[in-house]
């Protein structure tokens, strides 16, 4: 009997194979979306909104993880002096501000009657304290760069003055990430990284942390009834763990999800679901380590890489069409200050080969790998385990022009550590923030300043030096005239595109989907890709937060 059963099982499996093989090519019967009466406008408030969770650290400025949406969770509890909406910067804890004529003094008039969630009054002293505290204890994100501010002066309890060492064009913008801490709590904290007390999340913001579970990666934020600003449109925001966001969304477990391009049609047909594409502000960058591999200091080799890597193919195959090919001027097409007149670097292996030959790299021993004076163009490409397919594609394309690549997949965190320490030859890393103020061209590609603690590494780490770029960067930082500054940024993009210090592979333009009957108030900040990261997505859009 057992024997028969075994044979039967075997044939069943064989039959299953045949059946599924038969399925291929047939169109799946598309289930018609059931006709429901849904208002086109969508719901403007909700009691609870569920989002896909994950552990990104305790939501205070010093304990979140550098990667992932930790800082947006801090933003639900803590306020900054100024906030961002769809169009630009708007007043937040600061009601208004004046800039002195020399551009070095910023005087902020703070809102009156704002209290911390424990009832203590918020004053200018908190602002001064936060600045001084964060000079000693660096927050994970949103800290003010060292050497920018000379000192902070409390004029009266509702007025605070920042005195800068020199005019900095991006100062107000940088303040949007500068979350104000309660002085009466943090003044006694020596080590904020280990401060995991419930008191650590005392803020002035619209939400309170009701629950955080590190193991499950869950957060629950409830409305702060004493919030000074506009009412919350979502009373409770809950982040819950899901194994597959799309399935959870279909089952109604979460109310907002990213949609892969292949499943787009499924949601587009449904009028109850809104599908919107994100701007291209999240991207993959390909790094050259010129400290470890000095031959990469030759611009021609880096340009050859840029010509040989088919970035449009990466978008088509890896991003499944939901992306934009990388621009050598670094800024993406969707950036406010993108310079459209830069060189294109379209896929052109012939040109790449010509450049390598010009630089003296020839395949002398006939093994398919170019060499020069005994050194072969053979590199180890480090990447995170999620980027292996990008690596495979690059390996194929670079082989065509005689560059050998060995792909080394690392766990994401050790890849980030290697990038920070400059312990790599070539590396791929993906991160957000490409929509921010173009000043990041300075922090990433100039070796005068180095941004510490971030997922994008500064030029010093990978050994890139360009005096022209450094000079332009310093100039734009001090230029307070927007138009003139824009021109300098345009020029910086041309310099970068000519020099190729790193290759942006592609920027993702993922799709977001949500049920409009549940909550429809999602908005994008003008410089950011993710709707769930903006605090205004959870607030009623009236008063100072009115849609512009």
């Amino acid at each position, binding site marked *: 009997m057992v024997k028969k059963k075994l044979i039967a099982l075997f044939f069943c*499996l064989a039959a299953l194979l045949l059946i*599924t093989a038969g399925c*291929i090519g047939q169109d799946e019967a598309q289930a018609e979306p059931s006709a429901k009466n849904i208002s086109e406008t969508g719901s403007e408030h909700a009691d609870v909104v569920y989002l896909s969770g994950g552990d990104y650290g305790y939501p205070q400025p010093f304990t979140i993880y550098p990667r992932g949406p930790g800082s947006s969770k801090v933003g639900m509890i803590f306020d900054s002096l100024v906030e961002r909406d769809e169009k630009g910067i708007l007043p937040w804890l600061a009601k208004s501000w004046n800039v002195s004529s020399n551009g070095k003094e910023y005087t902020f008039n703070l809102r009156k009657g704002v209290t911390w969630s424990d009832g203590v009054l918020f004053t200018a002293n908190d602002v001064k304290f936060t600045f001084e505290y964060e000079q000693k204890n660096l927050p994970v994100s949103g800290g003010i760069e060292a050497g920018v501010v000379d000192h902070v002066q409390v004029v009266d309890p509702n007025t605070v003055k920042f005195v800068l060492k020199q005019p900095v064009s991006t100062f107000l913008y940088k303040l949007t990430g500068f979350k104000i801490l309660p002085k009466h709590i943090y003044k006694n904290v020596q080590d904020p990284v280990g401060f995991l007390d419930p008191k650590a999340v005392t803020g002035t913001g619209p939400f309170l942390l009701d629950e955080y579970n590190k193991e499950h990666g869950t957060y629950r934020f409830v409305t702060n009834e004493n919030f000074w600003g506009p009412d919350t449109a979502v009373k409770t925001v809950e982040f819950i763990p899901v194994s597959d966001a*799309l*399935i959870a969304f279909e089952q109604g477990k979460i109310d907002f999800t990213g949609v892969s391009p292949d499943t787009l049609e499924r949601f587009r047909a449904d009028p109850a679901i809104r599908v919107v594409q994100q701007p291209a502000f999240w991207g993959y960058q390909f790094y050259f380590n010129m400290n470890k591999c000095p031959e990469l200091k030759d611009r021609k080799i880096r340009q050859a890489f840029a010509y040989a890597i088919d970035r449009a193919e990466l978008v088509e*195959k890896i991003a499944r069409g939901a992306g934009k090919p990388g621009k050598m001027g670094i800024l993406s097409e969707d950036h406010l200050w993108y310079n459209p007149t830069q060189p294109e670097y379209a896929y052109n292996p012939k040109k790449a080969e010509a450049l390598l030959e010009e630089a003296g790299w020839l395949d002398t021993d006939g093994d398919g790998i170019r060499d020069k004076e005994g050194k072969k163009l053979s590199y180890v490409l480090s990447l995170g*385990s999620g980027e292996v397919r990008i690596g495979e594609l690059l390996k194929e394309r670079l082989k065509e022009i005689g560059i050998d690549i060995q792909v080394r997949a690392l766990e994401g965190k050790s890849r980030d550590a290697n990038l920070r320490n400059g312990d790599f030859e070539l590396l791929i890393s993906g991160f957000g923030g490409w929509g921010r103020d173009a000043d990041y061209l300075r922090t990433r590609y100039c070796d005068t300043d180095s941004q510490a603690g971030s997922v994008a590494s500064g030029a010093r780490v990978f050994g890139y030096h360009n005096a022209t770029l450094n000079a332009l960067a310093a100039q734009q930082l001090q230029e307070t005239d927007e138009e003139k500054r824009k021109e300098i940024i345009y020029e910086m993009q041309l310099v970068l595109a000519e020099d190729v210090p790193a290759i942006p592979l592609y920027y993702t333009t993922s799709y977001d989907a949500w049920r409009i009957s549940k909550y429809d108030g999602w908005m994008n900040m003008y410089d950011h890709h993710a709707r769930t990261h903006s605090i205004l997505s959870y607030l009623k859009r009236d008063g100072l937060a009115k849609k512009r």
Partner: protein
Amino acid sequence: MMKGIDTFGKANEIEAFGKAGIFSFIRALNHTIIFNKIITKISNFKLVSVSGLFSKFEKIAKFFSSFSLEGKIGVLGLFCIFSLAIFAPLLTTYPPQKITGNSLEPPGPEHILGTDELGMDIWAQICYGARMSLTIGLAVAFIAGFGGGALGILAGYKGGYIDQGLMRIIDIIMALPSFPLLIVISAFLGPSILNVVLILVLFSWAKPARIARSQTLSLKQNPYILAAKNYGAKPFYLLRRHIFPEVLPVLFVLVIGISSHAIIAETGLAFLGLGDPTSKSWGMMLNHATGFRSIYFTPYWKWWLLPPLFMLIFLLLSLAFISRDMESILDPKLKLKKGF
């Protein structure tokens, strides 16, 4: 001869319909026919050995007929996978690591089983992936099975401190939770095929060693071995002539068990992303396919996820059938001999 022409004619017909992939498959089959013919021709030259070969073949056929039905299916299945692995270059029109088509082409005349998201041929990956699975499975099984077996025989024969020491080491290794440790070590050593083989060997030599030792201990007491010893047989002669052949059948069953275990472990590691990321093994294919965002909402899983899965199940099932039969065939023989 007529038959050969016939298949060729049919192949041309099929080609006329534009099914170049199937044509290449048939052409590859013809290659193997020619290959077999060459072999028989070569063997015809050595007329002397033919009768020996024939009797050997008869022996194998007899052995094969003692298998149960599922055992025969197993042997046939294993034979198919082996030929898939050996003749991979003939059976495929594309190399597995080259981008030869568009992204995610459904199965069609150009690509028999379609392509993955990079445009690499899935049929080619299946064939070359069989090499990977079999190589790792066999390498681990033979090193661990026969290496561990040899150690066990030596320990059983020698006895004393060597035996005691070895047994304690085996106790420790058998008590270790193998798969979690496997994950930790391979994450630490970094992904490469050699590392995977070494780690798997490290965790699978203990069982054959222990069984070989116990067999040796009981065989050692047999009167014919004692007699041979008294006639002045050297230990090495005894081991080679009398003990090893007796232990061999048991080791063989174990080797099959270890190889299926090693194949699963390799696939598991690859699936978890701890294998060589650019290698084309079935586990890696599964890893890439399941890593593709919301693959179950798309039709792609049918030709991307299912083939490696079925091949894996097929291979493991074949091995399981064979090892079941081997056990039942070899065990009574063993008992019979021991009863002497």
